[in-house]
Structure formats: C-alpha cells, structure tokens
C-alpha cells in the first residue's frame, strides 16, 4: 500500500508543504504567503497540498518540519533545520549541485554540498535583512512600484550606480535621498541589486565558491537578483522551477528516510492522533478557528 510523507517549512513570511509518496514522487507542493509569525500560512499551504493530493491528514505516515517555526508544528514527528532541508531538497531537484544560495523572506544562507549531496559547510546571514524579501518589500513601497516589477526594471539599468547601504530598515530613507539627487528608479534598482549581489558574494566566500550553483528561496524569482548574482559569481545559476519548496521537499525526504529506516527496524513512534475536528479544521481553512498546529506567540 502506498504511504505518504509530509514536509512542512514554517518560514518567516511563508508556509510551504510538500507531500511525497513512498516511492519518493512528489504528489503536492504548495506555497502560501500569509504574513509572518503565524501558523496561518502553514495551515493554508498544508490544506492546499492535501486537497491537491486528494488525501486526508491521517494518511500521512510521517511528518518532518523545518524553518524558523519548525518547533511550532505540532504534528511533526521531528524537526530538521532549514540548512539540512534546503540542501537535501536542492540536491534532489538538481542532482550534483554543489552550492545552494537561498535568499528568503528575512534571511539568506549559502550551503556547500559534497559529492554525496551532504552539507559540508554553511553560512547564514540572519542578523540583517538586507537583500532579502523584506528588504525588497520595503524598497517596493519606497519606490512605489510593484514588487514583481522591480526585477525587470532593474535589468534596464545601465549606469552601475553605487549603493552602499543595504539596511532594510533605512531603505526608504536611502532611496528617497537618491531620488532627490536626481537618480531614476531604474538606476536605483540597478544599484540595489548589484549591492545585494556583492553581499551575497561575501556570504558565499565564507563557504567557498564551487560549481554547479543553484538558487532557491523567494528572491530566486527576481530576474535582476539572479542576473547580478550570476555576474558577481561569474557563473550561471540553476533555478529550480519552484524555488521556494526546496526546504519543504528536503523535510519530506527526511520523513521518507525515517519511513524507510522504519521498514527495517522497530515501529516509529505514533504520529500525534488527529480527531475529526482537526480534519475539518484542515479542510475548512478559511473560516475555521480550529488550529491544525499550535501557534505560540513569539
């Protein structure tokens, strides 16, 4: 009988869920952006994934959670950090990848993998949101452009503008000052993306450049970010089709490991029993107040 495993990535600004069958085929992958520090995005992503897969929650044999809020996912059998999960997911999507650059909602990380696809080194920048999704959101507001327009606009820049500060908090002030001095939005955006690529290069140098390189995380969807990082690195970046699900996929793969280990060993600890109320909670996400996973104020 086919079993299913679930990987949940409880990120700082998005929730992701991936379901695999016991052969490792991806049967669902969902991303939900519902704002930071709440389990709502996870519930939405989970609900959507189950619906897409045509499954009930009790058909999930094993769950691994990852991401900033991994410990808040009560249904998880265990947690694994996003470093291990992103590496695992990326190595799965892009066999042979040696470097993974992940720039997400609030943090950025670089992970180096060995020939077996295992993590050998990693570096994180989670002290400062410069260059992450949060930064681009603030920037979009300051420039009064759509967040998805910024990348294409930045690609039109020609002047190589120097932007020295990457502070997300002060992004608005910086940008206003630049515009007041006569810079165009396009050039400001060009300079910002170049600066962000330079910072990413700094993070990469802590780990050491290697090939092939993949980029995951929300910012991978920004063509200017990709372009400038490629330029700074002097290498093409491999972009998986769904760059945001690498973490959840990795988590699901760890869950699959557990299941397979289980097949030759003693029974796994039981998953937290779900009663009918919880199931309904999952299916009626939009209006429900029954939590599928406990959220804690942080």
């Amino acid at each position: 009988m086919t079993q299913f495993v679930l990987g949940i990535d409880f990120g700082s600004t998005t929730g992701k869920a991936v379901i695999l069958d016991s052969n490792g085929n991806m049967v669902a992958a969902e991303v939900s952006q519902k704002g930071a520090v709440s389990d709502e995005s996870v519930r939405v992503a989970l609900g959507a994934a189950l619906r897409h897969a045509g499954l009930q929650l009790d058909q999930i044999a094993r769950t691994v959670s990852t991401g900033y809020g991994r410990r808040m996912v009560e249904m998880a059998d265990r947690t694994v950090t996003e470093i291990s999960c992103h590496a695992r997911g990326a190595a799965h999507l892009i066999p042979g990848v040696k470097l993974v650059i992940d720039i997400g909602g609030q943090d950025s990380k670089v992970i180096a993998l060995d020939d077996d696809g295992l993590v050998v080194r990693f570096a994180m920048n989670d002290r400062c949101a410069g260059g992450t999704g949060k930064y681009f959101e603030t920037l979009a507001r300051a420039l009064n452009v759509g967040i998805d327009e910024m990348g294409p606009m930045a690609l039109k820049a020609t002047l190589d503008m120097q932007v020295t500060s990457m502070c997300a908090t002060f992004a608005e002030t910086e940008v206003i000052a630049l515009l007041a001095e006569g810079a165009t939005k396009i050039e400001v955006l060009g300079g910002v993306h170049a600066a962000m690529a330079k910072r990413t290069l700094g993070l990469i140098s802590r780990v050491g450049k290697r090939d092939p390189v993949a980029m995951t995380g929300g910012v991978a969807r920004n063509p200017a970010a990709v372009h400038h990082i490629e330029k700074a690195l002097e290498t093409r970046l491999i972009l998986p089709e769904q760059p945001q699900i690498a973490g959840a996929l990795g988590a699901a793969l760890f869950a699959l490991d557990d299941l397979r280990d289980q097949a030759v060993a003693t029974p796994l600890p039981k998953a937290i029993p779900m009663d009918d109320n919880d199931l309904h909670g999952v299916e009626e996400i939009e209006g429900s107040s029954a939590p599928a996973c406990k959220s804690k104020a942080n």
Partner: protein
Amino acid sequence: METALNRFAQAARQPDETARNWKAKTGKKVVGTFAMHFPAEIIHAAGALPVLLQVSDEPITVGHSGMYPFFCGYTRSLVDQNAKGRLDYLDAIFFGDHCVQLLSAADIIRVQKPDRHVGFYQLIPALRDNWSFENAQRTLNRCIEGLEQELDVVVTEEGLRDSIRLFNTNRQMIRELYDLRRQGKIHIGSSQMQNIVKSSMVMDKAEHNALLSSLMDGARQGNFGDVTPGVPVYLSGHMCHAPKPEILEMIEACGAHVVDDDLFTGFRYVSLDADESGDPVKSLTKWYLGRNTIVPCPTRLDPKIDWDGWLLNDARNAGASGLIVLLVKYCEPHYFYYPRIKKTFEDAGFPHLVLETEHESSAGGAMQVRVESFLEMIKQKRRPQVSTV
C-alpha cells in the same frame, strides 16, 4: 559537593558582591585586574584580594557616553560598570595586558574616576625576542613596587612564593577536573565548568581551594554524574570574558557534549603552573612567557607557535567531532587569527562552526539553528540517493 558548586555558581553570577562581602568580612583591600595574562599572585602577595573583573549582565547604558559601541563587550561593560559606580569597592586596579581596546577602557576608567589609582605595567606581548624575559621581569618588578606604594605594604619573596603555591594548587585541581572530563569519567556541564573557573578568578583563592578539595574525592570516584550522549564538541575562543551561560547550555541542549575547551573562563586560565622555588618574580616571568606554549593566545606574539595547528591537535585528542568557535564581536586578535583556524580545519576536513557573540544578544533562535544545523551536519548518514520523478 553541592555546596561547593552552589558557591561557585553564586560567585560566578555575582562577582562584585562576592568581593564586597569578602572585603566587609576581612577588612582588607580589593584590587581589580583585567584579563588575560596578568599574574594575580602579585596582588595576592600584597595582601589584597585580586578580582579579575568580569562582564556584567547589565545592558550597557551610561557606558556608551564614554566608549563607542564598536568596542568588544568586555571593555564596554567595564566602562559601563565603572560609570555606574559598580566598581567603587575596588581600592585600586592593576593590570598588564597590552590590548588596544583594554587600554582604551582602562584610560576611560581612570579619567572618569580619577581618585582611584589604575596602574598599568605593560607585559611585553612579543614573547620570543631576546629582551622579552628581561623586559617582562622588569615590568613585574615595577608593578610590585607600584602595588607596594599604593597599598602601603611590603611584598616579600617568601610571601610571593606562598601565593604562587596557592594558585598552583588551585590550577592543578581544576586541570584534574578537565582531565577527568576529557577521559569521560565525569560529566560537568560546560556552564558548570565555567562557574568553577570564573569563581576562582574572583574568590579568595584559599577559600576556593578548600571548596574544590571538598569535591575532588567525589570527582575522582566518578561522582559527577554520567556522561550524557551527544555529539562530542570542542569549544574555542571567547577571549577575556565568559560566554553567557545560556549559550553554553543551549549548545548542550541541542545535542552536543562538550569534551574540552580553550576558553579564557576555561582551560586557558589554568593551563600552566609557576615554579614554587627560587626567585618568584623570575618564576612568574617564566610563567607569563610560557603560557602561550601550553594554550596559544592570539593576543600574544610568538612566531614559533601556531594556534590553529595546536587547536586541531587538541580537538582531536579530546575526541571531538566538531569545533565550535565562540567569537566575540569586535575582538580583533580573534578576527585576525580565525582565517587560519578556518583553513586548517577545512583542509583537515574537521567540521567547525563560528558563533559570534555580542554583549547585547544571547542564545536566540538564530544561534540555535546554527548549532542544530552543525550537529545535523556532523551526524548525517551517507545513504543512496532517493530516486524520484
């Protein structure tokens, strides 16, 4: 044994109160000193309690009106404590380490409290030059003269030898605990071990020796609790001041088992004994110059000693599977040396992790995920690739 550990924890948590109580009880003087290489035996021989000043848990507030925020947590905290009057119980401060940030703090401290003497006797940081011994010896002699004058006492050779003996005894017992831990015969949590060392820095040495003795028998019989399973890890660095206990505890809670360290509030403090016979100033000079060969320090200069190679060796000998470098933000000597450690460990395929610490922050989620990821990385099993569509 419980009493001893509790006393150590208390002194580590509240060093100033411990010193003030001692002062009230004995009516004697208390002389503050700074990290890391100053031989406090000299102060002890002058009849005063040497207190190796510690970082305070208090957030830095007024201190920032004297010192910029881009100085290390140790120096900023010292300036802050001084400004708040927390160090007013000290009768004097005497120190010798040459570190630009430490000297900056000392200067600000003496300008802001001009009535309390701060004596600086610069211990030559270059340890292997032809004049290193002579200069260090002269410096220590000048320092003793200065102490005698300030405290109006006479320091005798015999008295100084006695102090050396007392300090040696203390160091030996702590080193024995380290040995027992390294051999896996006892379990001492890393913050507990830190309490033992840190309390020695601020308590009356004879009293500390008595408390230590009371737990040595039990320790030798393995009565310190069973070794808990976990990834064996070596902690390195964190110059001059103690990493926050929460950080040490978090590292262990994530599944690491600390087998050894070269922390200042750790093995570095007790690494070497001084000769108990002969000219005691010569002994302390030898001790000062020799410490670096036992546990290399990035603040000292010795072309023949390589901290990175030594560290790899020490971590391997301790049976560690990973190195965690605790790097204090703005600590320049560590910043200078870290790239060599990084290269040596990477070339050797020995996993390492850097945790940068700041006075203002503690063992938050960000730090925890790094430690967890690191331990996961060490533990990960090689398995055949999962084939999928």
